[in-house]
């Protein structure tokens, strides 16, 4: 970019993509990211309320220029109906984890694991003589916190869903991110 447009900082973005619920669409989206050298940190996909569409939440990172290109390139895919950069809004994210943790390494571990699960309002969904399997849902901070608490016990396995995100109701668009695009450039939002 030119001197008038200094490279902005790379930061995390959540992009919601509404696509036709059709064969091959996921690979078009994933292929676009790999072909153009964009990152996908996490991706979750499922049919929407209207089952003719699928909703994707993509967690990615990049400076403003990169994110502008990601959004434009996504819009260019024929099967993409709508692209929303959630980072322009106030929004909520959630992720669900299934954590299998050791409970028998030291005496008292089993009780400790049970207490941690309680504190984080998570559920023990399976147990074996030496492990618990804990289901936890939350935002990034909560997930990080419970993992930190459980680590000393010995985490055997973690399965994550990837993040889903939704804008808060009645939130006006903030002045960050894509809004810096001039009017003539916005018409690609379909």
């Amino acid at each position, binding site marked *: 970019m030119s001197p008038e447009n200094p490279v902005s900082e790379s930061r995390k973005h959540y992009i919601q993509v509404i*696509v036709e619920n059709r064969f091959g669409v996921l690979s078009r989206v994933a292929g676009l990211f790999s072909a153009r050298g964009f990152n996908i940190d996490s991706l979750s996909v499922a049919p929407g309320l209207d089952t003719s569409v699928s909703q994707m939440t993509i967690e990615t990172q990049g400076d403003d220029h990169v994110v502008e290109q990601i959004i434009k390139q996504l819009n260019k895919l*024929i099967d993409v109906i709508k692209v929303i950069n959630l980072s322009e809004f106030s929004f909520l994210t959630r992720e669900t984890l299934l954590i299998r943790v050791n409970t028998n390494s030291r005496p008292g571990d089993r009780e400790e694991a049970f207490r941690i699960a309680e504190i984080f309002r998570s559920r023990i969904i399976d147990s074996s003589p030496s492990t618990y399997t804990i289901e936890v849902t939350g935002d990034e901070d909560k997930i990080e916190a419970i993992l930190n608490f459980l680590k000393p016990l010995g985490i055997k396995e973690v399965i994550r869903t990837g993040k889903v995100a939704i804008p808060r109701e009645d939130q006006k668009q903030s002045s960050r991110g894509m809004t810096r695009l001039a009017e003539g450039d916005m018409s690609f939002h379909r």
Partner: protein
Amino acid sequence: MKMSGAEMLLESLKREKVTHIFGYPGGVVLPVFDALYKDPSLQVILTRHEQGAVHAAEGYARSTNTVGVVLVTSGPGATNTLTGIADANMDSIPLVIITGQVPTKMIGNDAFQEADIIGMSRSCTKHNFLVRRISDLPRIIKEAFYIAKSGRPGPVLIDFPKDIIVEKGDFSYPETVSIRSYNPTIQGNRWQIRKAAQTILKSRRPILYAGGGIISSAAHKELLELVTLTGIPTTLTLMGLGAIPGNHPRFLGMLGMHGTYAANMAIHDADVLIAVGVRFDDRVTGKIAEFSPHSKVIHIDIDPTSIRKNFHVEIPIVGDARVILKDLIEELREISAGEDAFRHYQPWIDQIAEWEKEHPLCYTMDKDVIKPQHVIEKIYQFTQGDCIISTDVGQHQMWTAQFFKFIKPNTWLTSGGLGTMGYGFPAAIGAQKAHPGKRVIAITGEGSFLMNIQEMATVVSLDLPVKIVILNNQYLGMVRQWQEFFYGSRYSSSFIGQSPDFVKLAEAFGMVGMRATRPEQVEDIILDGFSRRGPVLMEFQVDPEENVFPMVPAGGSNIEMIFESPGEKDDPKKRDSILTA
């Protein structure tokens, strides 16, 4: 009445006003070729390789501004089209490619001649479709043509499994297309156009930088009108040549790596850059940080991803070039006070004229060796630009772009973005098929020509009067030039002097072959070759070490143009060494 998938396909193509199909038969598409046999209203052009079929369709599409159609079989038939498809995708050429596929139930089982062409072509098509139900077929074809031609044009592939080709169903062709997720912007934003007009009016050193988008949207009249109204100097990209007449006084020639001195200097010193239907390709901009450093940029393009992809843009306008230029002209007329409104550009125009005088395109004639540029100039003199020219990729391509003056749009067929050797000759076949009465010339090098030489059988069997001009310098010339400049003249794998005897080869294929080895023969061969009725191959044995100048080294700034070879620098007889302005 029930129709088979094959019959539906042909009926749908006719509804799309298709008259020519470029293709090659094979196992799973036999029923389609059988239906074509029974229906003479669609003409099949049988090439001798599937890649040739795609390039021919590209030449057809570019020379007519319509959609080119390709029909091939599954597996290798499909994979052979990929280079052509990628080429069309880079250069925004509208194509519909129909590939046969193994029966639906066998997909994924590694069946004979199965290839996952949907997966393979995903990243080099504008869109692709796998036909999974016969009832979807008419809609898919309708959408394919619409997507290929609208917005930023491009190739669309339809993968057509054998069981659906033979299945019977009811046919009803949709009248209209509605794709909720695809609505290209046509009209430009009114306020942005006004802002652009004001910026242009206030500028002192404006330059128009236009490209292939002008050709795709048929905006050449509007572009010329804008230049006539304002007198703004204009440079074109490789893909844009012909967008304004090559002999227009305000035309500065091509810009970029092998662009003219005047065009590159003007871009560098401009205060307003009006970019229309271009994408700031690296071969155009050179070192991006030093490209047009003082300018405010107005960028008109139908593809929003082209805007701010490589370069800053102050006034983006998304939409169709023709529609926007029309509005822009109207706006300029409104806000400017009469003819004198653009008089203040005069010092700038004088400055550019200085640059044009300082370093015009030139080469030195030799009494013993044919200069390739001379051949191009002679072809221009002979045809006066009234012909369609295709090229392959390399030095001959750049010399043609520099020395041939393209007067009209859609008369210049070249592989720009992908740089595909082997493009030119088949593209000429497609153009000749579309314009039977027109002179079509394939200018090529001996390296490129060998890459799709099998199509000689196509022109001979169809008796297409394509004229082939081979500039034979015994090297992969552009590779050799780079090796001379940047690899200490170590000509690794670039010498291909053991070429076949092209004259005999032409005769073996059943066409006329001619050869010129001395400068005095050039005119005679052109005169003789071009006045013959059928296909003619003309080989010109040219200076093996001639280089393309000016040249901007890769990654260099556009004003660091080189005008002579490294060895010539110390030669006091030659003027100007490396010029760094």
